[in-house]
């Protein structure tokens, strides 16, 4: 049985795709059979792995189980790491899901035939509160939530907690600081304030704002490939170690 991990945040531009791509790469490097499903119609992960953003039959074909999901998977240039590409039609995925009696179970159904094939399945989710995110909560064993340390953090937490608790089987929620600028002490204070009254787990690891992360778009590779000794690569390694630890 594979572990399903979703990078999620209601807000965009907080480092979801970077986290999904880099963590999936690290899992694969360790020899774990890994799949990344790029659920975001903007197709940033798909672009980073140089794959055409195209799925036969689109998102509707997948959630209706008409398209054989295994046939849509593309091998990336990295060993043990495969990609289920994004498709522009994913922007209507909510509508496609809405036509089912139990819409939130659909993504899990799509992934079912892949459960024995992969050790980890990463879901890179679009920023929204929608049927898609609810389906992700149903399918995922854990949500990896990048949080930018600012005033909105607390509100983001509350929204997340409500949403995640509403799912059939609430996933573990592992939040981590993203795009930090070196003031760890301030983050810790903010974290302590947040942790009060929240059931969410705030991880120690923090991903710094880094040129390496920005250069991923140019290099079209995970940071560990082109800047393995950089601060960002090390931060993702620490994050992945902590996530694995928490998953048990």
């Amino acid at each position: 049985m594979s572990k399903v991990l979703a990078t999620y945040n209601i807000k965009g531009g907080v480092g979801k795709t970077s986290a999904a791509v880099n963590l999936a790469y690290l899992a694969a490097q360790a020899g774990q059979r890994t799949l990344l499903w790029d659920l975001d119609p903007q197709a940033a992960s798909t672009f980073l792995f140089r794959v055409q953003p195209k799925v036969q039959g689109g998102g509707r074909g997948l959630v209706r189980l008409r398209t054989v999901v295994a046939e849509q998977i593309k091998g990336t240039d990295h060993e043990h790491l495969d990609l289920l590409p994004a498709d522009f039609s994913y922007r209507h995925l909510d509508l496609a899901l809405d036509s089912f009696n139990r819409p939130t179970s659909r993504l899990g159904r799509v992934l079912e035939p892949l459960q024995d094939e992969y050790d980890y399945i990463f879901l890179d989710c679009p920023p929204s509160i929608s049927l898609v995110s609810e389906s992700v909560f149903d399918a995922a064993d854990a949500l990896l939530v990048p949080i930018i340390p600012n005033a909105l953090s607390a509100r983001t937490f509350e929204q997340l907690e409500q949403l995640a608790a509403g799912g059939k089987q609430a996933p573990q929620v592992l939040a981590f600081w993203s795009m930090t600028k070196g003031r760890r002490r301030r983050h810790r204070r903010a974290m302590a304030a947040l942790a009060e009254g929240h059931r969410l787990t705030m991880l120690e690891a923090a991903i710094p704002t880094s040129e390496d992360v920005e250069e991923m778009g140019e290099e079209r590779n995970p940071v560990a490939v082109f800047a393995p000794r950089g601060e960002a690569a090390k931060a993702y390694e620490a994050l992945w170690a902590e996530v694995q630890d928490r998953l048990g």
Partner: protein
Amino acid sequence: MTVELIAAEPPSLGAIGVALGPALTVGAGVDTTTERVFYDTFDGLLYQAGLEHWAVPGIAPRQSLSEAAREAIGVRALLPVAHVRVRAKTAPLLDSLQKTVARVSIERLELAQASRAQRRLRPRVVLVPLRGYDSEVEDARRLLQAKLECSDADQSLREEAAIGLGADPAGTSSAVDVALSPVQRADEAAGVVLTRLHQVVQLNLPGTLDDVDSEFLHDYRVALRKARTVLRELSGVFPPERLAALRGELKWLQAVTGERRDLDVYILDFDLLRARVPTEQQPELEPVKRVLGHRRAAAHTQMLKDLGGRRARRAMNDWTTMLEYLPRLPDDDRPDAARAIDDLSSERIRTVYRRMLKMGAGITPGSEPEAYHELRKQGKELRYLLELFGQPLHDARVVKPMVKALKGLQDVLGRHQDRDIQAKMLRGLADRVSAEPGGAQALMAMGVLVQQLEDDAAAARAEFAKSFTAFSSGEQRELVKETFRG
């Protein structure tokens, strides 16, 4: 799917780039030299299952075996088929997004342990697609075939290497599988079958002596038993004196290999048997396994002495000699020699079938185990007659269901006999086991196991009536009468 092309001369990466452009470009190449030792079982089980397995020299072949391969080989050992040295240049094939869609390898190949003249194998161009890029590789295959002197590989590397060494890539079969004609003289047909059986015994002898895996001895003994069936059932085609002597010697060969085979079966079944006692008592049976191991080692040593001795060699020679002389001997004391094989074998099949009907009808749940054993022996006789003569001479559509009905009965009888023998053997081990450390607990667990085995034997006896009814039905009788009219 991986594509393998054979090239007269290995092309350069540059030439491949020109052939595949502009849709695909070739990335930087890396040179490697690797060695592959291909493995299969003696009887080519991997090859027949469409599987292939290789390991680098010095690595135990079972270490990286796939689940499917493990299942295909069962208890058989993996033996080296060929040792190939691969000098490869490997490069990525990139699409217009600079995405790797496949890897191409230009492979220069040679057999590592062959004479200089035999060593060279044909160069290959191997295209391995990344997942989801099969169609790109299909296009690349077509372009390489059209623009370079390449063609689809007509043999896998493993096949080519095995053939290069003079071996059959499908392995060594122990099947009899000889061509017979219904009107052939019976002595000639018997000679053809016995010649092949002699060959099968000889083929399986080295692996039996070296104790490579338990199937060598099994196949050795099956061929021996089949030969004894031919000698017994077709006795009228052989000169009586030589026949009696040879039958005696083959019986002796069967006997001196019996104990090791019984212990092989016991040890192979041990884990299944152990699972029959309560979980907490299972570890207590360890001394039994140890004693079985000691006894098997002793039985193997004794068997080596017997099979390696003069008597065994002479028995095999006598077998060959009789077959050589058979066509030239007068018919006077061989009343069935000139009969058509179809006529004679059909008569024997009918007779053995009738004998089984009579024996089976007399068996009740209260009968002694020996009655079941005797019926099983006749069942084996009938099965071998059907396989050796029934199938080559008659319509398979008729003979196969007959063999199936017989198999159903034999399974029940076999289970009964195995459990009966195993229970008796366990009782016979009691003294030895009690002398082992932990012997007292083992004896108690053995008691539970013996009870289980006896229950199994009783269950098989209860099933007997049903399978015998199917075997002896009016329809079956009619079928035997119709098919084997002679």
